[in-house]
């Protein structure tokens, strides 16, 4: 079973890689030109570059060559003649910080809201949280970001207008981290509030489902306090879908990060993707798309593999 799941994940990734190759090879007729733009090259050098970029031979040969390159971690060159992989490596930590922090916060707050809302469905708390999360779920992230920027950076200069760190900052160690955190408050807020619904709604539904189960009725009948029943029995079982959701939501959060990084001028993978698309810088676009897809596929696989470990009911023989 595990082998099958891994197989499916690899298959999905393979389709991404293949689509990447054909999609981009259709539009980008001559990747070499992008590299030696503006320079005089000898015929020998050109041939060598074509060799390096696998442009000689049939499309099939080129495709095999492309796979070979990928396996060496070679993603090609940007319009600025920089290796795509190093360009990505530069921007990745920023996005990881943003996405990582917000994912944890969103999950924790969202699950907590969902538990409370789901334990007492149709209570005031339930209606209010459901209404509010629904409202923010319906707001354009871009608009939400602009509104926050207007209120808390422009009108009241409590937070920076953008970026990740002030270059004049001499802060080191913990202070530096705190400063980065200060820069991430507004963009993080957009992501956290905008995506709370993902967790709270699922968690709420899961609570509803478990609260109807016999063993809870039994627990209550035994005279256990309500909050104890909730904490000891209902929550652990209902937590399951949300935990896998963290992994499954990586894709959404990356989408949010693209918008937020653009709105707050944060130099991460998301704003880089937009820059590449506007260029268009095909090699860079291709590389970032591949990376994001691979990350999401890996996360999905992990969720898939973890789920049965947590829930005995879906454990397969």
């Amino acid at each position, binding site marked *: 079973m595990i082998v099958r799941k891994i197989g499916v994940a690899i298959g999905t990734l393979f389709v991404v890689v293949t689509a990447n190759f054909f999609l981009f090879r259709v539009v980008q007729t001559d990747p070499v030109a992008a590299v030696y733009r503006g320079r005089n090259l000898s015929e020998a050098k050109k041939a060598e570059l074509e060799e390096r970029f696998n442009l000689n031979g049939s499309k099939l040969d080129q495709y095999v060559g492309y796979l070979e390159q990928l396996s060496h971690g070679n993603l090609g060159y940007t319009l600025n003649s920089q290796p795509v992989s190093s360009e990505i490596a530069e921007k990745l930590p920023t996005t990881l910080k943003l996405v990582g922090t917000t994912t944890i916060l969103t999950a924790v707050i969202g699950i907590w809201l969902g538990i409370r809302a789901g334990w007492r469905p149709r209570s005031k708390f339930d209606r209010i949280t459901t209404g509010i999360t629904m409202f923010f779920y319906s707001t354009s992230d871009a608009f939400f970001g602009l509104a926050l920027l207007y*209120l808390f*950076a422009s*009108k009241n200069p409590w937070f920076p207008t953008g970026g990740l760190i002030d270059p*004049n900052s001499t802060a080191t160690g913990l202070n530096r981290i705190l400063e980065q955190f200060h820069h991430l408050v507004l963009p993080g807020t957009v992501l956290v509030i905008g995506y709370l619904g993902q967790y709270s709604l699922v968690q709420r539904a899961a609570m509803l489902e478990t609260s109807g189960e016999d063993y809870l009725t039994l627990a209550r009948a035994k005279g256990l306090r309500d909050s104890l029943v909730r904490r000891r029995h209902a929550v652990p079982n209902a937590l399951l879908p949300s935990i896998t959701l963290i992994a499954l939501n990586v894709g959404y959060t990356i989408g949010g990060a693209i918008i937020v990084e653009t709105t707050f001028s944060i130099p991460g993978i998301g704003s880089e993707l937009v820059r590449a698309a506007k260029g268009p810088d095909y090699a860079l676009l291709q590389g970032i798309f591949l990376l994001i897809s691979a990350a999401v596929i890996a996360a999905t696989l992990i969720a898939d593999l973890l789920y049965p470990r947590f829930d005995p009911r879906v454990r397969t023989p």
Partner: protein
Amino acid sequence: MARKATRSIAATLAIAAGLMLASGVTPTADARTEDEKLTFTVGVSQEIDSLNLTNGYLVVDYEVWNLQYATLTDKSDNDFSIKPGLAETWESTADGLTWTYHLREGLLWSDGEPLTAEDVAYTINRSVEEEWFNHTSITGNLTATALDATTVEIVTSAPDPRLPMMDAYILPKHVYENIDTEALTTYAAEDGVGSGPFTLTEHEPGQYWKLARNENWYGEAPAVDEVVFRYFAEADALVTSLERGEVDAIDSVPGEQVETLAANENIEIVQGNQGGFNELAMNAGDGLGDGHAALKDAVVRQAVNWAIDREVLVADVLDGYGTPGAGLVTSASPAWDLVVPEDETYSYNPDRANDMLDGAGYADVDGDGIREMPEGTNPLKFRLNIRSDSENDKAVAEFVVPWLKAIGIEVNVKAVDSDQLTTIIGLGEYEMFTWGWVPFVDPDPELSYFTCGQITMDPDSPGYNDGNWCNAEYDALYEQQHVELDADRRMELVQEMLMVFYTEAPYAVLWKTDDIMAYRSDRWEGFVRQPADTGPILFTNSSHSYQNIVPAGTSEPTETTEADTAGNGETDDEGNLLVTVGAAVLVLLIIGGIIFLKFNKGQADRE
């Protein structure tokens, strides 16, 4: 495609080296302790594309090179006249073809290696051999020989009116000789070894780059210890950061924000011009590609020129901070500008444009509002490429589309980034595009770009002639002025060339831009404009401002900025606005909440 400014801030070629104005008041160094570095931070709207001299071409790249590399001769901040640089004296043979430069004694690179005539000869000769495109417009005809450690002999194959001016960046041989031709194409050039007043120490891509004072520079030590350039993707953030004092100066102020900034007593705005202009270029069809046949006809290109209202563009797009375009600008000095007779000046006259097109046989045969070629086929539908990072380009497109529609030409706009636009131009797959140039001091390079030889005939080795326009008369005049040593006669020739360019109209020059910069006058003083009175203070043709600025009051750095800015921008009006917006959001939240409460209640009732 070199040296196009993606924003209308000034580009530069030469580097300031020799000149140290007596006005540079030395700050009281004892006011600062050792770890309190005096940092000058510039907010910029452009990111470095490459610090490699063989492929970078953006304004910000030039600013780093201006700070980091000294040149043989320097330019005066007043009028660009020649000043000693690395070389203290020079002389030529009677025919003007051989020049001998004498370097200062004891020159050192920032890493302590000696800087000798060898470095100069090495740079010039290698740049010719490998055709480094930032160097060849100066060094193309030159051969250099190091006679001894401080003497270099430069021979030109044709008379060159620009000599003895030698403003090509000199690179450290001991660094570059280890980088072969192939490795050089992708070399990041962040070695930080230089001979100018400041050298690169750190580059955080997409965020900032830092330069530290070069203690081995031959000139008088600047007051500033460190220059930081911080990149802002959004114009908003750029301006805000200046207001808040997060940066000390910014490279561009959007026209509509000038008023608000000017009201701030801590901020000084400097409006300067050094020849930068923007154009709507047309593909005249003498090169590669699939440009529309109609644009081969000068009449159509002229009609386009008559259909554009430059006054409106300056007033609306630039908020008045510019001058309507009057032809190609070829020099940072206005002395070279074309003077167009009044009756020949393109003004906004769509009727005239329509008459010209009617007269030349471009009729709208199928009645769809778009003219066809005289044969009655091939409607006049043009592709217009604009730069995706330029708000001005977008605005120009929004005006040009309806204006040209009014004379029966359909325009389809596409936004791409500068690198991609370069490729498209090289392939000739366009009818029109918008971009700008910032000329050097001598008109020769800019003039040379529009000769037939600069038309791209092989996309792998593109030329500069991005109008794909070839004109024998223009070329002949170019060759004459290129070797004309009499200054007045050369000026006449250049004027003639500019007039040919104006009437043949491969470009519709839209405006001459002012660079609007701003700095914190509560913190700094001593900025130097180049050229005097009319030029900008930063991103000029040298680095005089960086060498001369001192903290305001010429002593200790001020510490009042935080308090100052906190008080700024907090009027009652804005307070009310805040309340309004807050209330609006709250109302929405409440409505949303009520709807859902009701909605959930509805469900409950039904059960």
